[in-house]
């Protein structure tokens, strides 16, 4: 089957290559594709079709059809006609039960027709409903392409690489290269993308990505290019599309039989791989190039029985075969016994990338093809993609005979299309979704024109009126690994992160931060805070410096509470609201000096708060700057009755209760590090929040840990703050919550002239409270789920936002939104716990240390 060496062949006969197909040894040469080596070895059936499991063989030999897809080294859906053969490759057939020659599922082709008409899965097997999962499983396993191993681990490495160029040329044919050379000659940096493996070096001055496929043209001229295991993201000032034209199959009964090929397949088999494609052939073609294929066949030793020029009027054609393999073709009633039919219905411009870029596509009546028009700025088309030298012919009249396939990928027949139209799917976009024509691996390359034509004929409209389906990326199938890229997720870690890991912390995500959930025993950690002292890393808090002559005015306007009267060295709790009066974030504000404030936010709210501040100041134009120092400053909170005692030896700051009061801010050194000390407490005990430069995170942490303070994580912190009924923004509030109903009316100073959200909160005040955030105490100790229902008279009346068992209190406590009339100390409420209802008492004052004596001690 392999011909004698020929000039220009791609194979290197001095370098044999061996691989296995279904466990059997296959021999080829360097330069072979897996497909060419298999063909040279005598293989003709390469796949089984999607739905009917009909045998399919090489059709295009250029990666444009679904016919040669196999599993290679565990990767499904590899088009072996373009996949380079490599030593030791393990190649298997896919979508078969048995073998490619004897596929049990081929029974669908013989007997399944009446049960599997177009769109059958929308109508049949959907009842009884309960059985659908079973049917679905069956259908998924019976039809389709290769199988993905859902449990497989990442086996290969996929990379993404960015490229910038003056000019990107998509298509390395003669027109593309000519445009590329011209651009390079004028000094532009040119990148050429070509689907074919390069022959020799790239032409001078050009950067060649090959074999590579441009997957689409996105907004801003971004072109992703798949090249093996690298996805290039190319941005060019100018894009030249030279994707050429696509040979179109001829639609006739039996047109999917193994042995019916496009001219390009013959060109490649003969010239690239020196293979005789068949013994006896008939050529059916609609353009001169394709007709000339007869010479190539003769040159390769194939006997050409007939050459039919399809431009000479519609022909009646029908092919026949045995076991799916071609044994003859009838043309105008004359039968030719042959094993090869080279059929081409002409060439359709490969305009898809241009359409994605925004070009319009119109039907050219004279040529019988769709051509691109009105190209967007910076996108050009050259060569046959413009329509130059292309043309196509209408399908032959329908004959009785084997199935006539409009779409090989999805096994859509002419009968299916007619039926879809009869059922009312009379637009091409609807038909696409119903029949799935053009939705398969060829992405419409070989079926789009044919289906539009069929629609035009059956609905008695012109092709122009039918139009085209929307072109969307990817233009060619792409491995998911390539889209996924490298497995990295940008995660933020505090400068103390590694100390937590070393101490055995279980880490969790909070927003984009990694934080310790706990160090193994949340209850013991909470106990340590109550009994001695605990240490928590709060570096994740957002931190801003608001500074300038009008900084106080700004804070006064943006927060509902007062800051103009805050004295330097003092701290105030701050709740930030939206202009609709909803709670957005919370934190503290410490006044450094007359013009400087240090603002903290929640860990996940920092970016939103900064944007909010900047947005408002863009309107107010007050004289101040807002600087985000979140990452620059590490923070730890030392809390517990022994906190003062433990911190004392490490700092030059006077910690005496009278010298350093609750809500005071002081400055000094801790463990030799310049530190801002804030006397605040989220966890309800005497506490110091220490803010210092991040590069000293481990130094300060180590010094504090060495005093015997117990590190505690987020989970114990949540228990502790709940005991104090401290609200966690985002957990206990949502986008509808306001400060009045969230039981923080004291934070809203209506007497101020203005603040963001004032009008909305006034409205809430006028209309009265509807719901209220309250504490609750379970009566039987069970812990309700967060998000669980508050039930009243059998109906949903509110929801639980936080709930934990407090070892300190010996009971389950929580926070919940309840109707205003239930927001009364000791009121009975009912909560859903598991399948049942449990009783709880409403609490309005903190569960632990309600007077705050410990905090202020």
């Amino acid at each position, binding site marked *: 089957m392999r011909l004698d060496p020929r000039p220009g062949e791609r194979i290197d006969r001095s370098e044999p290559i061996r691989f296995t197909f279904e466990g059997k040894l296959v021999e080829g040469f360097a330069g072979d594709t897996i497909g060419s080596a298999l063909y040279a070895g005598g293989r003709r059936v390469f796949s089984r079709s999607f739905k009917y499991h009909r045998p399919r063989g090489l059709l295009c030999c250029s990666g444009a059809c679904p016919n040669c897809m196999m599993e290679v080294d565990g990767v499904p859906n590899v088009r072996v006609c373009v996949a380079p053969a490599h030593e030791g490759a393990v190649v298997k057939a896919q979508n078969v039960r048995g073998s490619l020659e004897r596929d049990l599922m081929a029974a669908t082709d013989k007997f399944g027709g009446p049960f599997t008409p177009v769109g059958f899965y929308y109508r049949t097997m959907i009842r009884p409903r309960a059985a659908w999962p079973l049917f679905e499983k069956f259908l998924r396993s019976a039809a389709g392409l290769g199988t993905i191993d859902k449990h497989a681990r990442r086996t290969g*490495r996929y*990379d*993404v*690489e*960015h*490229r*910038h160029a003056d000019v990107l040329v998509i298509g390395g044919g003669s027109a593309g290269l000519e445009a590329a050379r011209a651009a390079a000659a004028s000094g532009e940096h040119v990148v050429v993308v070509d689907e074919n493996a390069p022959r020799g070096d790239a032409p001078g001055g050009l950067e060649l990505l090959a074999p590579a496929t441009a997957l689409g043209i996105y907004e801003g001229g971004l072109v992703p290019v798949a090249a093996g295991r690298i996805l290039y*993201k190319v*941005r060019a000032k100018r894009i030249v599309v030279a994707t050429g034209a696509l040979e179109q199959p001829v639609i006739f009964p039996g047109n999917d039989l193994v042995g019916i090929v496009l001219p390009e397949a013959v060109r490649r088999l003969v010239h690239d791989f020196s293979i005789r494609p068949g013994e006896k052939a008939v050529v059916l073609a609609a353009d001169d190039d394709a007709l000339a294929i007869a010479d190539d066949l003769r040159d390769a030793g194939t006997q050409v029985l007939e050459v039919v020029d399809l431009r000479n009027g519609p022909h009646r054609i029908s092919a026949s075969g045995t076991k799916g393999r071609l044994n003859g073709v009838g043309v105008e009633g004359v039968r030719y016994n042959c094993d090869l039919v080279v059929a081409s219905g002409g060439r359709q411009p490969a305009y898809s990338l241009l359409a994605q870029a925004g070009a319009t596509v119109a039907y050219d009546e004279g040529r019988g093809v769709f051509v691109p028009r009105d190209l967007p700025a910076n996108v050009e088309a050259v060569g046959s993609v413009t329509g130059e030298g292309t043309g196509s012919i209408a399908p032959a009249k329908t004959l009785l005979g084997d199935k006539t396939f409009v779409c090989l990928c999805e096994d859509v027949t002419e009968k299916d299309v007619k039926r879809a139209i009869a059922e009312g799917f009379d637009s091409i976009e609807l038909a696409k979704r119903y029949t799935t024509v053009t939705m398969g691996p060829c992405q419409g390359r070989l079926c789009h024109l044919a289906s539009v034509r069929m629609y035009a004929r059956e609905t008695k409209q012109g092709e122009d009126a039918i139009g085209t389906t929307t072109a969307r990326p990817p233009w060619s199938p792409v491995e998911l690994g390539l889209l996924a890229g*490298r497995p*990295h*997720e*940008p*995660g*933020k*870690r*505090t*400068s103390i*992160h*590694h100390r937590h890991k070393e101490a055995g912390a279980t880490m969790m995500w909070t927003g984009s*931060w990694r934080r310790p959930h706990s160090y193994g025993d949340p209850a013991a950690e909470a106990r340590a805070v109550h009994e001695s002292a605990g240490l928590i890393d709060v570096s994740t808090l957002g931190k801003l*410096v608001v*500074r*300038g002559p009008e900084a106080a005015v700004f804070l006064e306007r943006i927060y509902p509470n007062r800051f103009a009267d805050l004295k*330097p*060295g003092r701290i105030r709790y701050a709740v930030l609201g939206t202009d609709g009066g909803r709670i957005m974030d919370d934190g503290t504000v*410490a006044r*450094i*000096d007359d013009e*400087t404030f240090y603002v903290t936010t929640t860990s996940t709210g920092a970016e939103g708060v900064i944007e909010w501040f900047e947005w408002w100041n863009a309107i107010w134009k007050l004289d101040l*700057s807002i*600087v985000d*120092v*979140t*990452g*620059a*400053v*590490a923070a730890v909170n030392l809390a517990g009755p022994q906190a003062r005692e433990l911190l004392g030896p490490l700092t030059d700051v006077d910690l005496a209760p009278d010298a350093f009061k609750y809500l005071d*801010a*002081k*400055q*000094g*050194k801790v*463990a*030799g*590090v*310049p*530190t*801002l000390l804030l006397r605040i407490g989220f966890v309800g005990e005497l506490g110091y929040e220490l*803010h*210092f*430069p*991040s*590069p*000293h*995170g*481990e*130094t300060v942490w180590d010094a504090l840990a060495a005093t015997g303070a117990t590190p505690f994580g987020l989970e114990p912190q949540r228990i502790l703050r709940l005991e104090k009924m401290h609200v966690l923004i985002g957990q206990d509030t949502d986008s509808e919550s306001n400060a009045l109903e969230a039981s923080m009316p004291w934070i809203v100073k209506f007497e101020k002239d203005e603040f963001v959200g004032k009008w909305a909160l006034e409205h809430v005040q006028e209309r009265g409270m509807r719901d209220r955030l309250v504490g609750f105490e379970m009566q039987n100790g069970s812990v309700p789920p967060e998000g669980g229902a508050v039930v009243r008279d059998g109906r949903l009346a509110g929801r639980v936002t936080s709930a934990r068992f407090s070892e300190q209190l010996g009971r389950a406590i929580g926070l919940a939104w309840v109707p205003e009339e239930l927001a009364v100390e000791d009121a009975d409420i009912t909560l859903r716990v598991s399948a049942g209802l449990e009783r709880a008492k409403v609490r309005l004052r903190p569960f632990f240390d309600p007077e705050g004596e410990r905090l202020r001690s």
Partner: protein
Amino acid sequence: MSLSLDFLSPALGEPAPRSPLARALARSGIRDLSLDYGVLDARGDLTGHPMEGVEVVRLSPERSFVLCPYRDAPGLREWLEGRGVAAIDASGGYAGLEVEGEAVMRRLTELPLDRCPAVGAVGHVATLVLRDGDRFRLFFRQEYADYMGERVLDALEGLA
């Protein structure tokens, strides 16, 4: 004692600061710049204040990053403040590293590398990129140090 923004300046600490990239880049051969450069976030017009031995990267007409030797940041901040330029010592907020070659940068960023200095996503993290020939200095928020260290090493491994 009145309060100030000294708690932002790592160079004022007596113990040696630690680079957030130290672990990620250990034994990698990549140069860690985190403790070489101090970073000031300056608001105001710097054109009238020539400074020696520093690099000024203008982020907007009103905002610049001033890169100076790590230990000089607090002094330089005071000097600028004395001239009416609001400056914050952001040295603790940034980590920096140096990579060589366009190839690795192309795996990390879509920034046009012929137009540096630039600010944009490198490995999906906002980064200031400075170019000196074939060497690139990258400065990014220190909380991404571990991630960026891993990301850069991984990109280099892919090219190996």
